[in-house]
């Protein structure tokens, strides 16, 4: 059964040996303990030990010369190590002798318990396994409702740190993982786990072992990870079974939490929807107060958009945390593929304060980069309940622009300049102008100055009569030109998107 023999270092870090101390260490050899042999007294003469631990139940005096003699006999009998009752330090002679004979000497207040544990991990791994699993099951039944209680209970049963980690190795709950453990975890675990796959074992260079079991449930996959400082084979075999028992319970707790999150998010989103539609009713105000939202005062809207698939409800906590970390008390609401947020001030902020706030929001964005690929727009300061809608609209527009502008760090603050100026500024960029020219190319060299006609038509809110008046032409001429433009460009001018694109393009081309 040598494959079950743990190293001495691993045993020393194992839960059954918490109270075992090293009285004399040998750096050179790292013995494997093949079993355990008990003798009553230090005067015992052990027979052949073959790497087993020699346990002495009675050893009152650790400075006794008979301990030196026993070290000598144990070494000659091939002991893996020597464990004495008591934790008093050895005499210098015994220490020197242990070092010379390369026999580690351990001490423990309860040597029989240490012996029993070693015997169990070397000879009866199934007993250890079933014991741990049964204890986990009965402890889970008593564990409290939340996720942390489940993880804590599991950690107590295993006497090992237990972590709930994301697919990238980031800690979601429980004991935080070290950076190198996180890296090792992320590289070893598959992106898409298979439900019936065996638990994963990751050996770290330090000799520690991570054991991971997938938690499958709603939302992205995560891993239940137990960290063993040393690899005791029986324990390495037993822990995954415990984790497999715990994993569904963790999944259930996560689903419940998810449900709460979703419910809260829905509540917030619907309330924001009502706020955005004009003056809030009495009932809406009351609900806002319930959620702790301050409707009066001066609001600065912030729109945080996220690239790719993002769990908006699940990640809201990260966003709130990022704002808190920068000292900003922001209301954060899940909306679409990102979050809408606003910061309320009692009085109108000064220009400097607005600048400082914008800088702080920028730092929030940088904090979020670790979890979310975010682009951020910030609106102007607006007063009153309706101001929330206004500033959020500006922030939304700004965010839309910020998304394509890597040169500003995908951050845009609508400051004193209005949004229109910003848009115009954008139309003068090198990227937009060629696109605008290409868009208008079909009507450029046509008779009847179609480009100017289009510009005027769009400026006059698509009024043919007004266009004719501005250009000093007949109403029918104007209508014919519009029809021709629509035909040549192949567009429908009643479509707002297309109209906007053409409008912007017609603003930029006449400057040439």
């Amino acid at each position, binding site marked *: 059964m040598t494959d079950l023999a743990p190293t001495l270092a691993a045993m020393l870090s194992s839960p059954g040996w918490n109270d075992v101390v090293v009285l004399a260490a040998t750096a050179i050899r790292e013995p494997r303990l093949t079993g355990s042999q008990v003798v009553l007294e230090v005067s015992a003469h052990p027979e052949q030990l073959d790497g087993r631990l020699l346990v002495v139940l009675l050893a009152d005096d650790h*400075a006794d*010369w008979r301990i030196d003699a026993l*070290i*000598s006999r144990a070494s000659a009998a091939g002991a893996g190590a020597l464990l004495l009752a008591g934790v008093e330090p050895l*005499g*210098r*002679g015994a220490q020197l*002798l242990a070092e*010379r004979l390369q026999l580690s000497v351990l001490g423990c207040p309860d040597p029989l318990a240490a012996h029993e544990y070693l015997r169990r991990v070397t000879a009866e791994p199934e007993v250890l396994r079933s014991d741990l699993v049964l204890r986990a099951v009965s402890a889970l039944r008593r564990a409290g409702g939340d996720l942390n209680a489940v993880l804590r209970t599991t950690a107590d049963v295993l006497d090992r740190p237990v972590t709930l980690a994301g697919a990238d190795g980031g800690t979601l709950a429980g004991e935080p993982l070290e950076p190198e453990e996180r890296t090792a975890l992320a590289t070893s675990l598959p992106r898409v786990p298979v439900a019936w796959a065996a638990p994963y074992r990751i050996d770290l260079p330090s000799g520690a072992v991570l054991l991971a079991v997938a938690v499958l449930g709603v939302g992205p996959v995560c891993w239940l990870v137990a960290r063993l400082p040393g690899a005791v084979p029986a324990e390495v075999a037993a822990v995954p079974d415990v984790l497999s028992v715990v994993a569904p319970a963790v999944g259930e707790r996560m689903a419940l939490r998810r449900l709460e999150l979703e419910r809260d998010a829905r509540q917030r989103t619907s309330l924001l929807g009502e706020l955005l539609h004009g003056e809030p009713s009495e009932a809406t105000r009351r609900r806002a107060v319930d959620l702790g939202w301050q409707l009066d005062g001066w609001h600065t809207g912030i729109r945080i958009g996220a690239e790719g698939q993002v769990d908006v409800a699940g990640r809201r906590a990260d966003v709130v945390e990022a704002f808190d970390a920068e000292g900003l008390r922001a209301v954060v609401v899940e909306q679409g593929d990102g979050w809408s947020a606003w910061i309320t001030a009692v009085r109108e902020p000064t220009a400097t304060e607005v600048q400082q706030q914008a800088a702080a929001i920028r730092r929030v964005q940088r904090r979020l980069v670790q979890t979310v690929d975010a682009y951020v727009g910030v609106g102007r300061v607006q007063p009153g309940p309706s101001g929330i809608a206004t500033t959020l609209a500006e922030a939304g527009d700004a965010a839309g622009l910020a998304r394509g502008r890597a040169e500003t760090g995908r951050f845009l603050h609508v400051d004193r300049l209005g949004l229109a100026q910003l848009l115009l500024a954008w139309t003068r960029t090198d990227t937009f102008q060629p696109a605008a020219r290409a868009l208008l190319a079909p009507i450029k060299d046509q008779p009847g100055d179609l480009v100017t006609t289009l510009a005027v038509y769009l400026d006059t809110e698509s009024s043919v009569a007004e266009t004719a008046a501005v250009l000093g032409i007949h109403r029918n001429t104007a209508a014919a030109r519009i029809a021709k433009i629509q035909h040549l460009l192949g567009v429908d001018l009643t479509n707002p998107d297309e109209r906007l694109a053409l409008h912007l393009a017609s603003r930029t081309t006449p400057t040439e």
Partner: protein
Amino acid sequence: MSTVVRERDLTALVVGVTLLGSGGGGDTRAFGRMLRRRLGAGELVLRDAADLPDASVSPIGVVGATSVLMEKLPGGGEFDAAVRAVSRWTGTEVTGLMPLEAGGLNGLTPLIAALDLGLPVVDADLMGRALPRLDQFSWAVAGRSLTPCALSEPSGQVIVVDNVDAAGLERAVRSFVAHTGGWAVLALAPTAVEAATADAVQGSLTRALALGRAHAALESDATPAAVAAGLGGRLVGAGRVEEVARHLIADGGAAFGRGSMCMVDAGSHAVIRIETENEYLLALVDGTPVVTTPDLLCVLDRRTLQPIAVDAIRTGDEVVVVALPGPAWWRRPDRLAHVGPQAFGLSCPPQLLEAS
């Protein structure tokens, strides 16, 4: 065959009895100086029992805390008082002296007493080395009574003890010295020389003299092996003392300082540990017992080769440890039980050198 001791032999004799002390037996220097003064230009004959066929010899020596001797000095009349007391009690004139113990200062005290009292000295003693307890007198081991006997202490108090066994005598002596000056002269009953020496170790002082001369003949830069060979013993090891541990244990009313010292042999790097009480008792090399009482363990200063006593050894001393054969008298299984390691509470069978 008799041995004659003159002034020039005294240095060797003092070193010899110190070596027989096996680290115990008390400091011999003070009595060495006293003996040198008493002897002057004269000579002292260490006699064989056969030379004094009609003598009644009394074994004599100092008992109690020999370390107190350095503070509570002898008054000069203690030997006389003890010998007179035991003569008077037994009604037998003491016509010769013999040492109680050959190791340590008690190898010298009978010689001083003999010079003071003008009595001959028989070279036979009851231990052949230094041992801590009265029940380890060869007479007691051989079944001979130690009483009647007389004790006298420096301020003049004298007691005579009779009708008690060795353990009882031990208790009487301990309580007497504890309540007086810390030490006393013990004189046993005068006994016909043939009977007195039948159950005694013969020739210990002659051996001490030979050992001292061999010690004096050692080169000052002798290797540890050469030192051991020169003294006729076995080298246990040589190196630096790593640790000296001492603790008191209560043992039948008499508290002996149990302790140990450990060192690493400079050549083999073997770990050497020596268990001590009043004497060096047991030497282990790499955890294996190699020498035990009644053989002699001598710890010598590496540089000066002077013997170091148990209470003088210190961490950091550079020492040579040599084992010398103990008195042949003890090498019988029934006698070994009284002076072997078990007699000192060390659960280990006696490990003796090959008889020389």
